[in-house]
Each structure stands twice: as structure tokens, then as C-alpha cells.
């Protein structure tokens, strides 16, 4: 029993990502056509060269027809995957394995979500018929449970904690303001963030990620074939995914200051990639900042900060665009938006731009110049105590 990983066996040779936001004039089909077209152009290949496809969506379509119908794909295998908010990464992970297995030469991972057609505030997820005994809490409410627990455990007072959350939102909006594809492309003053209307617990509207439409896609080939298509492929160093036993919600010992699933996926990913000191070796990270306290706790679960110290590192600017370890340089879920099935691939898209030196000058990370070579993406589905988590690592060499 072991998680061996497929380090350096597959590579990304092209990516596409639509702008995220309110696409009133585009359906999920249009978004997929756009993202797939951009990915093919980026890789310099034709649709017919792709042997198999994966499409990740939580609720904007069912089955492989979600992709094969709008793209008129010519009798190829198309697999639809769903793993809550980690769906986009799950599409990518499974597509990579198909190439690594030798089953296909070239595959495409896609992800799409069309949330704005629902007409609801926040995220709405339909459930199978049930017995009516599960409290129907909103996503911000579930993640707001982290706050009081973190404060109590580490002796952070309410005002300090609000400053930390505000700092995270401010940073991600700062980055998003420099990203033409982001849903929110404006810097937001800290006092406006801190005073925004409360959604749940101590989370205001600016502590929540954007409800968004969008799609993204990646073309994957065997590592040894990658240079046929591009000078600067991204090599997959690690793909880790865990579904937790969901015991946090029933276990008195779970203290709501960590995502055990994330910590475990991170350990596995670092082991696959041969990373021994993540804080020193990772050049940038795209993490699942669905709500600001999530990003805070993730910094500890991903070993970017010591337990109980992430809040200080946040305030010190460690994770800023020009910090030691830039986190969400593209604006993250907060500012880029969170179309569920697309988000994991959107994170990878930022790694694609940054590691290849294609990110715009005003949001280019500086850590590559310091010799750091790896980019990490982290994608989470579910809520504290019962979730699934993905951690992936890519590098340009």
C-alpha cells in the first residue's frame, strides 16, 4: 500500500480559462467551447488530436455529453466527474492518470460551472431525498465555525481576528485587481471589507468568494512528448486527493481549527514531489479561499505557517504578491470568482502563467527569481469536519 504518484510522467502543454463572472450571455456550453478552444490554441493542437476528455461540473450538466455535445466531439471517451468544490482538480487528476497509464497520448481536462442562472444568493446545492434532519446551513455559516474555535485555541481576540480576515480579503482583491480574467477587478479598502454586511458568524460579504460562471481546460501529454508542443511545459510533480471519513462533525475531539483532509493530502503531495520544506521550496500557491478563515487555516494545514501562527504571518504580509510565499496571486476564489467545476483548473492556469513568465508584470511573483521552482494548487470540497481535499504540485522543469 502506497501512494506513489506520477512525478514527472505527464505534462501540461496548453491551457485555457475564460474570464469568470456574470456571463448572462453565455451558457455552460459556450463557456466550455471558449475554454477548450483557448486550450487547443495554447497547445497548438487540433481537437482531433485529443484522445479522451474529462469534464468536471457540480451541477451544470450531467454525463460526458455536457462536453461532447457542445464541442461535437467525435466518438471519444468523455468522463464527467464531480467532487464538490474540488471538481476541477478532480477532472485534471483523473485525466493525468489516463496519460500516465499509457492508455492515451493526449487528453484534455475541463471544468465548468454556470452558477448565475440559479438566481440565488450564494451557492445552492440540491441534495438527494432525505429525512429532514440535517440543518440546511449556508456555506459561509459552515466555514464561519472555524473562527470562534481558532480564536479560542490560539488566544486571538475578535478584533484581531477580523483584521486577519480583512487582510486576506484585501490581499486577494489587490491581486484580482491586476487580473483581467477576474470577476472582481478592483482593490477594496480594508475598512469597506471590515464593515461589509454580515453573512454568517463574523463573515461579511467581502469574506466570501464570488458566485460566478466560468470554464477552464488543460491539455495533457506524456512528459517525454511535451517539448514537441511547447518550450515551456508544466510537469506534474504531485497529485493528491483524499475524501475524509467525515468524523469531524460527530467527533468531540475535532476542534474546528484544521482540515485534517488538507493536512493529509498535503503530506502525500509533498512526499510525491520530494518536497521537504514547503515554506522554502514552494514559489506560489493557489489555495481554496472560499471564505477568508479557510485561507487562514489552510496556511497551517499546508505547512506554510506553524500551527497557531498563520494569523501573524497573514498580518506580516508573508502571503502577499511580493511576500515570501505568494498565495492566490490571481485573486483566488475571493476575487477571481468560484465557478465550482472550473476553479481547480483556474488555479492551475495561474501556475501556468506564472511559471512560464506570462503573468502580467504588475502581478508577477518574485519568488521564481529566488530560485523557487514549484507551484501548488489546493482545492477543497465540503466543509470543516467533512470534506474532500486535493493538493497538486507542478513545476516548469
Amino acid at each position, binding site marked *: 500500500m502506497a501512494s506513489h504518484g506520477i512525478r514527472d510522467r505527464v505534462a501540461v502543454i496548453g491551457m485555457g480559462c475564460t474570464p469568470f463572472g456574470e456571463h448572462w450571455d453565455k451558457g455552460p456550453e459556450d463557456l466550455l467551447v471558449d475554454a477548450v478552444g483557448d486550450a487547443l490554441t495554447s497547445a497548438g493542437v487540433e481537437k482531433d488530436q485529443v484522445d479522451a476528455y474529462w469534464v468536471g461540473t457540480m451541477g451544470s450538466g450531467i454525463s460526458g455529453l455536457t462536453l461532447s455535445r457542445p464541442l461535437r466531439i467525435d466518438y471519444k471517451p468523455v468522463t464527467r466527474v464531480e467532487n464538490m468544490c474540488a471538481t476541477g482538480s478532480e477532472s485534471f487528476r483523473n485525466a493525468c492518470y489516463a496519460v500516465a497509464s499509457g492508455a492515451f497520448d493526449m487528453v484534455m481536462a475541463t471544468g465548468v460551472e454556470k452558477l448565475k442562472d440559479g438566481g440565488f444568493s450564494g451557492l445552492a446545492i440540491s441534495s438527494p*431525498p432525505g429525512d*429532514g434532519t440535517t*440543518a*440546511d446551513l449556508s456555506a*459561509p455559516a459552515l466555514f*464561519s465555525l472555524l473562527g470562534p474555535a481558532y480564536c479560542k485555541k490560539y488566544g486571538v481576540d475578535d478584533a484581531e481576528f477580523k483584521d486577519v480576515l480583512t487582510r486576506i480579503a484585501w490581499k486577494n482583491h489587490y491581486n484580482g485587481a491586476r487580473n483581467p480574467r477576474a470577476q472582481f477587478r478592483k482593490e477594496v479598502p480594508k475598512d469597506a471589507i471590515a464593515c461589509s454586511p*454580515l453573512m454568517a458568524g463574523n463573515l461579511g460579504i467581502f469574506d466570501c468568494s464570488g458566485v460566478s460562471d466560468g470554464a477552464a481546460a488543460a491539455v495533457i501529454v506524456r512528459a517525454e512528448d511535451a517539448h514537441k508542443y511547447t518550450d515551456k511545459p508544466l510537469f506534474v510533480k504531485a497529485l493528491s486527493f483524499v475524501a475524509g471519513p467525515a*468524523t469531524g462533525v*460527530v*467527533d468531540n475531539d475535532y476542534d474546528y481549527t484544521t482540515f485534517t483532509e488538507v493536512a493529509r493530502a498535503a503530506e502525500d503531495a509533498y512526499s510525491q514531489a520530494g518536497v521537504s520544506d514547503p515554506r522554502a521550496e514552494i514559489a506560489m500557491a493557489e489555495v481554496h479561499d472560499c471564505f477568508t478563515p479557510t485561507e487562514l487555516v489552510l496556511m497551517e494545514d499546508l505547512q506554510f505557517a506553524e500551527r497557531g501562527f498563520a494569523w501573524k504571518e497573514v498580518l506580516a504580509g508573508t502571503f502577499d504578491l511580493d511576500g515570501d510565499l505568494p498565495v492566490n496571486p490571481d485573486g483566488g476564489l475571493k476575487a477571481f470568482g468560484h465557478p465550482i467545476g472550473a476553479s481547480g483548473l483556474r488555479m492551475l492556469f495561474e501556475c501556468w502563467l506564472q511559471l512560464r513568465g506570462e503573468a502580467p508584470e504588475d502581478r508577477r511573483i518574485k519568488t521564481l527569481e529566488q530560485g523557487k521552482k514549484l507551484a501548488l494548487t489546493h482545492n477543497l470540497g465540503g466543509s470543516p469536519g467533512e470534506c474532500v481535499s486535493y493538493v497538486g504540485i507542478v513545476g516548469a522543469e
Partner: protein
Amino acid sequence: MRIISGGSYVPYRRLDRATISEALGTPPAPGTRSVASYDEDATSMGVEAARNALANVPPELAPELVLFATSTPAYLDKTNATAIHAALGLDRSIAAFDVVGSVRSGMAAMQLAGSASQRTLVVRSDVRTGLPGGADERDGGDGAAAFLFAPAGADVPAQTTALGRGAATLEFLDRWRLPGEPASHVWEERFGEHAYVPLAQAAFTDACKSAGITPEDLDHVLVSGPHSRAVRVASKAIGVRPDALVDNLSATVGYTGAAHSGIALADVLETTEPGKKIGVLLLADGADALIFETTDALGTIKPRRTVAEQLAAGVGGLSYETFLTWRGMLDREPPRRPDPVAPAAPPSLRSEDWKFAFAASRCEACGERHLPPARVCAKCGSIDQMTSERMADVPATIATFTVDRLAFTPSPPLVAAVLDFDGGGRFRGELTDVDPAAVKVGDRIEMTFRRITTAQGVHNYFWKGKPAR
């Protein structure tokens, strides 16, 4: 009328009657009325009254039959008593019947129980209101009472013994409501007085006669009925001592319909002494009188909370607009969220012990408790080695909590907490009867049976936490 144990339920909220007159410009009225919360109905309050009445009843005296009386049944064509039966975790071999539709149903259940051959649990519960600005809204109240009766002749320590009864029945139009109507109609007030008072006198005289006493012998007399004027006049016309007349709770609770004389009787039993004679007279579509006497066993089985304690714990400050919203009289703009979904019948049946009786599973191998019940142990992984364990009466502590301003709830915001139960077990659920601004980690919580939502014509009953008071 051999009562083994009794108990009441008076909901937490009070509406100050002055708020009605302030809102509508109607003549001011003194006092408060009790208000069932947005998540309570006759069934859920009945469960709470029954839990209170049965709190200290030993297992060998558990009910063998359940009768549920209300004038405001949550369902028609479907028995409501079955939900109460389930929430109490009673054995399937015990029958549960509704005696519903009118105020007189409460008396019917008491009389049937008094003559039954099984130990019978009577649950009387009502949510009483009327159209805005009317007397039923102002003078009504919400609450429940429950009594466990011993079969005649059984060797059981009963707190009361029956002395006599009387009845008078007459068909006349004083108060009525068609199925589905939100409020009742009443005839002109003086006509009701004309019809009721002679019936009350006749029934009460017959009851005293059959008991072999005179009205002056009675220590406590409870006269009640939906026609308050007739009740007032009859109280003075039946020959009882004025000091024997029991306070009708109108200044605090209001008239609670099918539950009313039950709540008042529970109060009397909680405060009187052995050897006292009690008369109960109900004016509802006729008149019914019961005479009984307290025994030396009075007070041997106590409810968890007395009527007086519940009255003291009640909280005012409810706005009239909120009251109207809770009673469905004010249709408010819903949040921009998906409508609540009705519980589905098959999963609800499969999880009946959990959904209604709040039964967890405890791992026989390592002792870990699971809420909801699970087949595979979260701690040690044992499979299907579980014992069912009822958690409804186990106190809990808040581990963490949130105030959800986005989620759908009939009364925003939704307050949710992660509850750690004494002796182990964790559950994430809703809190109710709570001030969102006052919740703290470490607060002590007890469980209460509630109607979470009503969606697609289905009432979703389940348990919530409320601050231990």
C-alpha cells in the same frame, strides 16, 4: 380520574397585548399571552408537555395508550399522535389516537383515559389565535399539558382519585371554523352566555351530586371555555366559594383551548396539598364537570418543570409583526435561497428512531456515540456493533456556533451550533428560543422537539437545541 403524573408546556415567548393595540389602534388590553415559536405547533408542544409529565415516571409505569387532543391539528386525515408516540420513543405495541377538532376534545381525552383499562397518556395542546385585532388573537394563548392516568382498580400510586362527573350537551352555534380557515367565527356574545350558563349549572350540579359533595366543599375550581363572558358568569352561578376559583392564567398565558384546563390543573396539582377536592368545569359545546380529590401520593412523581417555573422563564419583547409572521398572518419576502425541501417518506421511516426519538448509536466495542446513528464506528471501525441510545434528555455544551443570515429559516437568522453531549457524542444542529447575540462557546443546551419547516405540505419535525433554563 386517577392521575399518576402530570406536566405542562408553556412556550418561551410572550406577546405583550399592548403591542397589538399600538400596531392596530385597538383599545389597549393588559397582560401578555404565550406564543408558540415559529417552529412549534400543537404536536411539538404536546411532545414537550408529555416529556415534562413523564420525566420522573419509572419505566414500569410507562404509557400503554396515547390520546392526543387539540383544536389545531397539524395534519388532517393523518394521525398526529403517532409523531408524539415516536418522539417519546414509545413501543410500537402502544396505540396512539387523535381526539381532535374542538376545545371539548381535551375533556374527551381526559374522560376516556379515566375509564380506560390501560395506563393512558393524555396530551392536550393548542395554538390559539384569530384574525389580527380580534379577541381570539388577543386573549388566546399557546401551550400544552399531559397527564398519565392509571387504569381503574390498578395497584398504582395515583395522585388523584375520581369523585364524580356531570355533562350537558346541546347543539347551538357559538363558535365554529371550517377546515382550512385561519380563524374561527363566533356568534354574538350575549347569545352564548344565554346558552352556556344553564348547561354549566346543570353539569356541575350533577357532578357534585354524583360525588356526594356540595359546591362549597371544593378547594379548587377551574372554570374555563372559549366563551370568556359565559365562563365569568358561570363561575358565579355554580355555588362554589369565590376563593376556590382558580386563576385562569389570562394575564400571562391566555386561553389555550383544548390544553387550557389541563395547564391550570397541572398548576393546581403542583401547588396544592393531599386531600383537596378539585372541580373542573369546561364550557364548550355544552358543559362537562369532573370532581376529584388529591391523595397522599400527591407530589411523589414531579414534572421536570412546574407551570410557575415556566411562567417565570418566559420572555417578552416579541414584536407584533414577528408574531403575525410566525402565525402565517404576514407573508414576508423570502430570502433569495432555494425553497426548503420536504423530508421524503422512506428515509424518514428508515430513520424514525433518530428523527423522532433522537436516538444515537453507541459502539459496543469502544463506547463511541454517533449522532446520527451509524453502522460503522467513527473511532474504532467496528461494523454493526451498535446499541441504540436515546439522547433527547442528555444535556450538551456548545463547542462552536454560527449565526447564519443567508440560510432559509421561517424566522431569520438561523442559529446553528456544534453540540457536544455529556457522556460523548457530537451533533451539528439548529438552536431555538435563543438570542443570537447572547450565544457563547461553552453554553449549556437541552434538546427540544420542533417543527423545522413546512414544505410541499409536509411538516418536518426534528430536534433542536435550546439554552438550558
